[in-house]
């Protein structure tokens, strides 16, 4: 696999567009926000884009819910900042019309047919419009880095594949040009990268492996280090009973305390073992370096948690241990 070399921290300052993708529930929005924080902390001017209009990204960065109107969420001592907005197919459509000189006719067209009919009658068009808008933003160099919180897997693949699909279906005309330009952006390893996000669990790992090969083989998308979110802490103390642990630390604890700790340790050990099995699978089946983000013991992430995740994201990636596990490439 063609992989962006070096740390995520170095990489965010080279890439211009990053699509953050993963199965629903793995935390792509969180990782997109942490990536933006990491880049901005290093002095970059970042535009964070939510494709499916998840409003929660704004509050996570200490701002208002996201909307199509850009807001500045974060400025750093290093001169970096994060602006954020949503990009909807409808808005992209209007922007595209304007770009193509449809300004004066806009009202007539809008009166003639709703957006649903136009987009619905040209499949993949909704996705292509959004990707086209991102491509335009990159062309205008509105930011050093555009971080796109892409729709979840299942939807991520059709989203990113829309340009290739329209290239197959349409042989000429403006849509074809747009599709060609978007496909060129996706395959341009100097400009654009995919950031895959997963959890150390069976189903997310399976889907990530599939998605990684799909995005690279079919779209030529360069992949950044894989982000494994929600990793359980692998602390040495979780390998032994409370009795042993107490003896090693030279203290005595009551039987009730031991029981409570033993139950917690058993649970933690089971999670860590299951996680190890999934990381081993990644070692064997996906030749991508990885960064592991800790599972934070909170149900609702707050802006202060993002700094911890951004710091973890900036650590040196772990190379997959192919030697040990006998990987396929």
């Amino acid at each position, binding site marked *: 696999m063609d992989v962006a070399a070096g740390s995520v921290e170095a990489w965010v300052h080279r890439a211009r567009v990053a699509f953050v993708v993963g199965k629903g529930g793995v935390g792509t929005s969180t990782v997109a926000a942490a990536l933006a924080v990491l880049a901005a902390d290093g002095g970059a001017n970042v535009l964070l884009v939510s494709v499916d209009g998840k409003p929660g990204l704004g509050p996570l960065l200490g701002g208002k819910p996201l909307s199509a109107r850009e807001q500045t969420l974060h400025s750093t001592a290093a001169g970096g900042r994060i602006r954020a907005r949503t990009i909807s197919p409808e808005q992209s459509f209007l922007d595209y019309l304007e770009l193509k000189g449809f300004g004066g006719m806009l009202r007539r067209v809008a009166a003639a047919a709703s957006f649903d009919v136009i987009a619905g009658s040209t*499949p*993949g068009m909704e996705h292509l419009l959004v990707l086209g808008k991102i491509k335009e933003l990159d062309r205008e160099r509105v930011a050093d880095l555009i971080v796109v919180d892409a729709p979840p897997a299942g939807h991520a693949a059709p989203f990113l594949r829309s340009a290739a699909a329209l290239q197959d279906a349409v042989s000429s005309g403006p849509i074809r040009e747009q599709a060609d330009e978007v496909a060129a952006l996706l395959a341009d390893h100097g400009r654009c990268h995919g950031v895959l996000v997963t959890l150390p669990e069976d189903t997310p790992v399976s889907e990530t492996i599939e998605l990684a090969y799909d995005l690279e083989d079919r779209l030529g998308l360069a992949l950044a280090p894989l982000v494994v979110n929600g990793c359980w802490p692998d602390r040495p103390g979780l390998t032994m009973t409370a009795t042993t642990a107490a003896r090693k630390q030279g203290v005595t604890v009551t039987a009730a305390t031991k029981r409570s700790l033993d139950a917690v340790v058993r649970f933690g050990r089971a999670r860590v073992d299951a996680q190890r099995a999934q990381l081993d699978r990644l070692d064997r089946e996906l030749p991508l370096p990885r960064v592991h983000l800790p599972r934070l013991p909170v149900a609702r992430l707050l802006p202060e948690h993002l700094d911890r995740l951004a710091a973890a994201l900036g650590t040196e990636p772990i190379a997959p241990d192919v030697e040990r596990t006998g990987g396929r490439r």
Partner: protein
Amino acid sequence: MTTPPATDMASVLRDSSLVVTCGPGGVGKTTTAAALALAAAETGRRVIVVTVDPARRLADTLGIDGSSANDPFEVTGAGRDGGELWAQMLDAQATFDRMILDRTDDPERARTILTNPIYRSIAGSLAGAQEYMAIERLHQLWSSGEWDLIVIDTPPSRHAIDLLEAPDRLVTFFGHPVYRVLTAPGRSLARVTNAGASAFLWAIRRLAGPQVVEDTIEFFRALAGIEAGLRQRAADTAAVLRSAGTSFVLVSSPRAEAIDEAVHLAEALRIGGYPLAATVVNLVHPTPTPIDADTLAALADIGDGPLADQLTFHRELSALADAETREIRTLRAHAGSTPLVEVPLLDDISDLAALAALGSLLTSGL
């Protein structure tokens, strides 16, 4: 309606002929649907579970393989007292193809549709196609009268009631004046005189190029014959979804993003007139037995080491369990008097016994 809502999951299953699971992605919705279906089959009912895109592990558990896509098959070893569990995996493209073949009298016309480039990309990728296909399949299963209970797992969706809105959207689409003009018989493109339609065509031609326009019109014309049937089924299905035998089961996890989406969805269901019958919260972390404050104070400065690791993990897990309890409380408020079942974080389900255990957990009451 005078019947009060069921207060436990077993009653919800017993009293329903259709269960629709819905919720955000990544919360174990498909597994929940399968476990509920299995639990119902264990009570002697003939049940089919329809899933959109089961994870491989679950597909293996049920015995689904690639070749059985789109055809119902019996899950061996499931069901008691004469009950049966069947499963079916939905493939949007295959369902769409079959629908075209079933609804088109003229094979030549069917071929025209199936090979049309616009159709090829619509059937796989059109927004809402999967949702629409789920509805289409639901209609077939419902009208066959073969099943005591149908459990349908909706595609994960942020715009959660896509599935329910798909029939309406389709009716709106086919009812659009532009569509009507385009599909009117005996008209060539050049003779489209309706002002709205010609502006639409002008826009599409400039935006998409002439080839797309030709393909689009051909596609719409070819579809014209099956439109009435589509509308009728969409209307029938909408009625079934609102009928008394239909139960919506909301599935979430205790994480804030999922809870926020689930709350949004519960609200959308209520507004849409689809009553919520039960809520399932998966992936709940265990609550550690508390350690008394004096013990914790005495152990506060023991320094780094294995016991400190264990105490830290205990503290983190306790904090997490508290936070999750608070999040679940939000959802409980929306559940009202309907059952809400919490399911602990489990290992991946990899055999029928584990799925049956989950089913028992879901139906054993509050």
